[in-house]
Each structure stands twice: as structure tokens, then as C-alpha cells.
């Protein structure tokens, strides 16, 4: 990545960790193979959110010449909102599991079906 601005010195390392505590979070995000032979397709909502958002630009917009830490935190929670938005409304355009997957005309999973448990299980922790 090429920086087009001179960032201020960052006083110490700061890390944001996003954790989804719902039991089935990994199955939805990564897909899964089941004992009965069926298959759950991967719907990696965090990857999509990261790909669709320009994180350096978000940081730059949040940084007004003052506090880089505060700008980082703004960016972190904007990304969390982006995760939720993708979870709620992204059209995956993928077909169902097993043989239906590659058959044209079969119903598609338009969005992740979620009671809210997965979305609401997100915990953002800041380590510094």
C-alpha cells in the first residue's frame, strides 16, 4: 500500500479484535461439511466488509490532525458497523448446498438468515 500522506507517529501498538461469540459463526463465515454429507457455503462477511471499505481512507477522514488513537477507534467501530451491514443485507448470490450449488435456476441465498444472535454476538476489544 502506498501512503499518500504523512501519518503522525503512533505512540504505542494498538490492536482491535473482533469476536463473534455465536456458536455457528465459523460455520457461516467459512462454510462447513456436515456428517450427513451436506455442505454449508462460506459467506465471509468480514472479508467482504474489509474489501468494500478503504480502511486507510476511513482512518484519514477520522484523523483531524489531533489524536491518531481516537481516529483509529473511529475506524474500528465504522468497520464493525460495516460488518453488521454486510451480515444484514449483503446479497451473496450463491445457490444452496450440495448438488443444487451449480444448477441454474435454483433458489439462491440472498442474505444470511440470522435471528440476530450472530449479529449481536459481536464483541470488539481494544488491546494496547
Amino acid at each position, binding site marked *: 500500500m502506498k501512503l499518500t500522506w504523512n501519518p503522525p507517529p503512533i505512540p504505542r501498538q494498538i490492536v482491535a479484535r473482533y469476536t463473534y461469540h455465536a456458536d455457528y459463526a*465459523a*460455520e457461516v463465515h*467459512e462454510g*462447513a*461439511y*456436515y*456428517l450427513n*454429507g451436506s455442505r454449508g457455503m*462460506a459467506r*465471509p462477511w468480514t*472479508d*467482504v466488509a*474489509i*474489501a468494500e471499505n478503504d480502511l486507510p481512507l476511513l482512518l484519514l477522514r477520522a484523523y483531524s490532525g489531533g489524536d491518531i488513537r481516537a481516529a483509529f477507534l473511529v475506524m474500528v467501530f465504522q468497520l464493525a458497523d460495516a460488518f453488521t451491514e454486510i451480515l444484514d443485507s449483503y446479497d451473496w448470490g450463491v445457490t444452496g448446498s*450440495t*448438488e443444487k*450449488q*451449480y444448477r441454474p435456476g435454483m433458489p439462491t441465498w440472498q442474505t444470511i438468515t440470522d435471528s440476530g444472535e450472530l449479529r449481536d454476538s459481536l464483541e470488539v476489544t481494544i488491546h494496547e
Partner: protein
Amino acid sequence: MSEQIPESLDLMAILRPLLTPYLTTFEDGRLAIWVEPPIAPKAGSGLHCIIQRHYVALSNTAYQWQVDLVLHGVQADDPVLYEANLKKFNQAIAAMRSKFPKRREIRRPFTEDLPPQFRFLLWLEATYLKPMLIYS
């Protein structure tokens, strides 16, 4: 100088000899290693390897391939067979780790719904594929 993106046949050329000692066969008798799409044949009993393109276009994590090792059809009520298959599963994971130092691993818990499964996300270095690459 630009390199071609490694094709699935290149990856198969690496994985087939690496994993053959540990793999079973699909129900139709073919060795249980498969590049999707099209979707893999019906699983047999034992270790299977399913290869797919990863979501490179969507992701900043530039891994190109996902390789799933899945232990299908092996029940814990036959302890001898179960242990033998788990051993092959572990050996296959070790072989993959040894062959691909640059990788991401995704592990899932073994539950009553999910058989043992292990995913490698691979970014293949040119050194693995040099004899097969075309340079321009």
C-alpha cells in the same frame, strides 16, 4: 516479469503425491481428491481433499486456494478404524504444514454434526511451481 496464476492442475500435481498415502476413495472408486467446481462426487469413508478457489477478489488476504481435509463416514463406535483414520488425518495435516510454510489454517471443533475438517488457505510461491510456470 509476470507470473501466471497457479492453475488447479499445478496444485493437484503437488497435492496428489503429498496426500495420496492418507486419502480414501470417493464412492465411485476415484481417489478422494477433487477440484471444485464441479461439485465433488459422493464421499466415501475416510479422508477426502476438496480444493477450491478462495475469495481472492473479495478479500485483502491474498490467498488463492483453499484446501479442505475432511474425514467423512468414520464413526467413533469403531474405535480401531476411527483411530486409524484420525491418525491419517493428522499425518495429512502435518504433511501440508511441512509443504506449505506460508498458509492460514482454519480449524473447527469436531461436534455431533461436523466431522473432523481442517482448512488450509494457500498462497503458492513461485518456487513451488517454477518448472510449471510460464514467464513473459
